[in-house]
């Protein structure tokens, strides 16, 4: 019998899919204090990313990076996570959906299961299931830190139910469990169930089905992964030997190339292959030759071009512009052969490789397609959902949103951005659910008792082969006051963490050193993890043995190990000197400041205002609309001017939005939840208070000095060209030859990154020209044509319509010369091996964007925010926090982050709004105990602190003894420590960085030197 219950939850958002996007969307909603139900058909959440070994462009291990997301479940009671659950039916409409959820039995009681693995050892056939290359990876967990952490039994395969039941030492196996069916009410639905990957089995010429050494890129990732089938060793599946030469073949299942392939570009595979090649050389053997056979290297994301350059220059990854014909293994041969040709010589080349990786693209998941169809969501022929051309996460059904690869192939940052955007829109449909906040753990005297230090070595073995974690643990144990030391197999393995917790409690540990990656990533996580076992968050120190030892000294294991030990000893010394502290709770301001009145800024402002936040929208110029005012249509045909008019109208009339045009930001102070910003409104000073800030300041259309731009009337930018096509169709009809040159002022020394939008914009213009004048001959001179995603289809259409695409190399750029009425463009056609001169009526330069460096620098200075080398605003984490900034409460969206097309800007705007709502939803905020404090008995009231403080915080006040002494308000203090450094009486100490902590660390660091 199926049990049918009704969930006691109104006004929830249903998130379908527990991959990275689903988790992000659910967490955003939960943090914004909205109820969420997160369902995934898999027994644990994490999705595709958890199978990856490392991600670009940081080449970090994903298991650690994703951990904070999966570990922090049930945020404030708003998040209801369900594994093994599918949506069986949906009724109703936006604001009032009724969904039927079916949860398959796990046959394991999650509460009881300790994941001891006994069942798996005794009944391996019944324990489900592991992905990847080999169905029996070392653990049957999907990845080592699965959430929830418990096994799943496949009862259908079980012949001995009773025996299985008995084998579990804690009685967690419930062989008679039944599926559970529930109904839930929800206001909106986010589909985040991801995509399937293209299966190349039927492409015999790649030999995937027949040759064990031909693998897909995900399989290769599993081979690289520590939790994969080879335990993190790179071995050939055919013979278990390490490979010497590995090749990647791009665009397998993408760009309409093969049978069954989508016409779109999967967008992520180029970077994925680059990453795999780099990791191969870096982590396994720098002697391994890595070759990528590609069509266009699509490194169009933020700073991706630099990553590509690093792959080529620093890692020596070989890139071959070719579409290989075959992958063969001639009889009797151990190696694979790839047959291919190159542009330069029309002869075929046979090259031998040990392994071939097929960079397989994304395709629509059939299950998801069915659900989408049930929801009556309109789909493309390839099964992916149709979305609005200005709102990539909105489907044809109101209240149903999509994000991540379910919407179309994409990488992690874009998935995260879309997830936040979807949660912004979905969240707007449901109300905040008030829930009591958990009390902050009290700072007790015990936590400051005689120091008993626990050392946790959390660096995964595979983070670097350079480090011997066992030896490090042994060493840690030998440090005085260290009462226990342990290693996590993987940084986020809950079972070993449970053991650690037990050890902490058993040994009466009151201070902890975490030896792992940078405290910039780790500290907050461990503070949260260790709070429940009574460790004060300020009695935790991180030894950065990953970045500072394992990684920088990867090539010198002895040095790396010695340094790691030293870093641990330093951290122990530091934590011994640390003091327990209590955080502050203060009321938060719930208004937002949006800087920049372009389409991105207006969209962000409207989303925030729609969710009840009061928004102050500041625009530098006198008019709203930004750079988009120069645009006519999107490539899909979206009317940009209508969009702007609509946004302006809504923005200016919204009661929650105050628009300040001709306004500059002049000063800024405070912190998240309590910002104070000074504006110069038409020259008059005005101060506003706000809790969060979104930067949407855009970027500047580039005007490089190249190809006679600005000198010859025939030469213009794509922006200008678009205008001409729109406004002077008669002129366009006269054109015989049009030449477009890509990457002008992008991907060069001055502006090393790709401007992302130029390839589609030239194709958009080419198509528009052909519409006016089908006889025009259009040449597009390009380096790599980066029509990612569905833009590929327009590329194809342009080719079909006769647009001629000619590849040029950066060493041999085209030349543009004035020739009377025309501009002569000279370029080399590689295929013909000839120089071609075209007398062009119009030369359209794809000049892209550059950062508004000057104004960004000024803003960055006022706000105290970092910029990238290129002058764009730097996000907190390029992968997982694409719109958050390093400074809490700051978010970035649109071209201020990096150049992108309008729809993407708007998605980012919504994502930033969603992230900002997670801040603005809070009535109070917790302030870290990062402030300076005065020992009033020592203070000489000398005023040095009063004068030194950059924020005028210290004051000489009279205390209860009547003494005038310095007082530093913890709420106002920014925690820079200047006063502490300058105090001549050493009466001031900065929490967390007290002199005794620094000096103890120094002592330890240099102990061996003077010994």
């Amino acid at each position: 019998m199926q049990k049918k219950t009704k969930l006691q939850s109104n006004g929830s958002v249903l998130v379908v899919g527990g991959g990275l996007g689903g988790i992000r969307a659910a967490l955003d909603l939960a943090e914004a204090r909205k109820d969420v139900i997160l369902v995934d058909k898999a027994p644990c959440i994490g999705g595709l990313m958890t199978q990856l070994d490392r991600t670009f462009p940081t080449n970090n291990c994903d298991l650690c990076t994703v951990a904070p997301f999966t570990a922090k479940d049930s945020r404030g009671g708003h998040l209801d996570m369900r594994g093994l659950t599918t949506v069986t039916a949906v009724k109703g409409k936006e604001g009032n959906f009724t969904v039927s959820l079916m949860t398959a039995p796990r046959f394991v009681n999650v509460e009881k299961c300790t994941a001891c693995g006994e069942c798996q050892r005794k009944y391996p056939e019944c324990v489900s299931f592991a992905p990847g290359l080999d169905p029996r990876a070392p653990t049957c967990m999907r990845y080592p830190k699965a959430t929830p952490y418990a096994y799943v039994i496949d009862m259908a395969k079980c012949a001995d139910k009773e025996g299985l039941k008995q084998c579990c030492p804690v009685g967690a196996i419930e062989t008679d469990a039944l599926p559970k069916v529930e109904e839930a009410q929800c206001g909106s639905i986010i589909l985040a169930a991801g995509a399937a990957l293209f299966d190349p089995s039927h492409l015999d010429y790649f030999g995937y089905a027949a040759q064990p050494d031909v693998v897909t890129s995900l399989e290769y990732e599993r081979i690289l992964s520590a939790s994969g089938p080879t335990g993190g060793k790179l071995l050939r599946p055919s013979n278990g030997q390490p490979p010497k030469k590995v090749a990647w073949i791009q665009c397998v299942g993408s760009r309409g190339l093969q049978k069954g392939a989508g016409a779109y570009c999967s967008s992520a595979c180029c970077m994925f292959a680059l990453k795999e090649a780099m990791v191969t050389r870096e982590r396994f053997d720098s002697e391994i030759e890595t070759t990528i056979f590609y069509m266009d290297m699509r490194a169009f994301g933020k700073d991706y071009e630099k990553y590509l350059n690093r792959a080529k220059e620093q890692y020596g990854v070989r890139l071959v512009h070719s579409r290989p014909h075959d992958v063969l293994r001639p009889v009797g041969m151990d190696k694979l052969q790839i047959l291919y040709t190159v542009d330069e010589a029309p002869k075929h080349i046979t090259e031998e490789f040990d392994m071939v990786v097929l960079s397989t693209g994304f395709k629509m998941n059939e299950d998801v397609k069915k659900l989408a169809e049930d929801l009556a969501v309109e789909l493309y022929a390839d099964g992916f959902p149709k979305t609005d051309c200005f709102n990539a996460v909105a489907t044809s059904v109101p209240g149903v949103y999509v994000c991540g690869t379910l919407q179309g192939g994409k990488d992690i940052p874009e998935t995260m951005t879309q997830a936040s955007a979807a949660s912004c829109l979905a969240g707007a449909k449901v109300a905040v659910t008030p829930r009591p906040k958990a009390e902050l753990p009290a700072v007790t005297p015990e936590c400051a008792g005689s120091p008993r230090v626990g050392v946790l070595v959390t660096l995964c073995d595979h983070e670097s082969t350079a480090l011997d974690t066992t030896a490090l643990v042994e060493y840690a144990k030998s440090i005085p006051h260290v009462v226990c030391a342990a290693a996590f197999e993987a940084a986020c393995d809950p079972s070993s963490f449970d053991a650690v917790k037990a050890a902490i409690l058993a040994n009466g540990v009151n201070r902890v050193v975490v030896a792992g990656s940078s405290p910039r990533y780790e500290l907050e996580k461990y503070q949260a993890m260790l709070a429940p076992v009574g460790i004060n968050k300020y009695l935790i120190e991180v030894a950065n043995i990953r970045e500072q030892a394992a990684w920088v000294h990867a090539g010198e294991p002895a040095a790396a190990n010695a340094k790691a030990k030293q870093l641990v000893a330093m951290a122990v010394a530091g934590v011994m000197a640390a003091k327990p502290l209590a955080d502050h709770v203060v009321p938060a301001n719930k208004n937002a400041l949006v800087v920049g009145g372009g389409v991105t800024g207006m969209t962000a402002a409207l989303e925030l205002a729609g969710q009840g936040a009061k928004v102050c929208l500041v625009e530098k110029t006198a008019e709203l609309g930004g750079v988009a005012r120069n645009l006519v249509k999107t490539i899909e045909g979206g009317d940009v001017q209508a969009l702007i008019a609509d946004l302006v109208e809504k923005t200016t009339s919204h009661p929650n939005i105050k628009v300040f045009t001709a306004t500059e930001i002049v000063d800024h102070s405070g912190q998240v939840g309590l910002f104070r910003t000074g504006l110069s409104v038409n020259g008059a000073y005005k101060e506003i208070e706000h809790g969060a800030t979104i930067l949407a300041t855009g970027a500047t259309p580039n005007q490089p000095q190249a190809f006679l731009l600005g000198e010859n009337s025939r030469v213009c930018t794509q922006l200008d060209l678009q205008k001409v096509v729109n406004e002077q169709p008669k002129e366009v009809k006269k054109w015989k030859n049009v030449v477009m040159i890509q990457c002008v002022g992008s991907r060069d020394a001055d502006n090393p990154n790709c401007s992302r939008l130029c390839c589609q914009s030239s194709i958009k213009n080419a198509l528009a020209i052909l519409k006016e004048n089908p006889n025009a001959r259009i040449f597009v001179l390009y380096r790599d044509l980066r029509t990612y995603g569905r833009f590929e289809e327009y590329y194809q259409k342009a080719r079909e319509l006769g647009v001629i695409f000619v590849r040029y190399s950066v060493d041999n750029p085209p030349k543009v010369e004035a020739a009377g009425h025309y501009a002569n463009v000279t370029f080399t056609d590689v295929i013909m091996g000839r120089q071609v001169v075209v007398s062009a009526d119009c030369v359209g330069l794809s000049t892209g964007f550059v950062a508004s460096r000057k104004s960004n620098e000024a803003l960055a200075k006022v706000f105290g925010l970092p910029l990238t080398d290129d002058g764009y605003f730097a996000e907190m984490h390029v992968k997982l926090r694409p719109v958050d900034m390093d400074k809490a409460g700051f978010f970035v969206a649109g071209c201020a982050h990096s150049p992108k097309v309008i729809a993407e800007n708007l998605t980012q705007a919504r994502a930033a709004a969603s992230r900002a709502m997670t801040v603005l939803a809070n009535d109070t905020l917790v302030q870290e105990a990062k402030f300076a404090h005065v020992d009033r008995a020592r203070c000489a009231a000398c005023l040095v602190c009063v004068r030194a403080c950059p924020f005028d915080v210290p004051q000489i006040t009279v205390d209860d003894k009547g003494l005038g002494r310095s007082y530093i308000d913890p709420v106002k203090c920014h925690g820079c420590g200047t006063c502490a450094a300058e105090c001549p009486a050493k009466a001031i100490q900065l929490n967390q960085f007290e002199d005794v902590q620094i000096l103890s660390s120094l002592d330890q660091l240099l102990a061996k030197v003077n010994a």
Partner: protein
Amino acid sequence: MITAERKPLEELLGYIAPYSRILLLGCNECVTVCAAGGRKEVGLLASALKMAARKSGKELQIVEHTLERQCDPEYVEEVASMVAQADAVVSMACGCGVQQMAMRYAKPVFPALNTKFMGGSERQGVWDERCAGCGNCLLGVTGGICPIARCAKRLMNGPCGGSANGVCEITPDVPCAWHLIWERLEELGQTEDYLEIIPAKDWKTAQGGGPRKIIREDLAE
């Protein structure tokens, strides 16, 4: 406030050459405020002395301590046990503190500072001389600016011929005291006061009269 500056390390090293256990004693009063002899400076000097001594092959043991005030016998008394453990005391107090220590303890006491002047803070990290302690204050007739402390020639009746552009001929960093006085008198509408000749100064209230003493009968035992 009494201001002071650290002596060159070399001189201090000379003083303490025969000794290896040093009590380095700061003062939390004036010299702390003028960043010469507070806890922080004590810490710096201790490090510096140890390093410099180590360079010549000697390991110094330095005990660092800072008294609330080194010019009072009661405070000085507090360090008796520390002094007993030391071969010599290096005091980072002003001359008063050094002497207080020397009077109390039969151990060598060396000054680590050069006591400079009675002054005030001009801005962070800058102090200037304001009072010469002449014992007979003139400020009432000089617009509140002391020509004795602040005029290079202690002129009491007006600026010398070297006053130009508001600065003293000695160095452009120093304002001409009389220029300041004049501005101040103008501001106060008291320029007529300037015409009064201040007669020859009675220096016996100043150092000219030998060591001075103040006795408050009601307080003195």
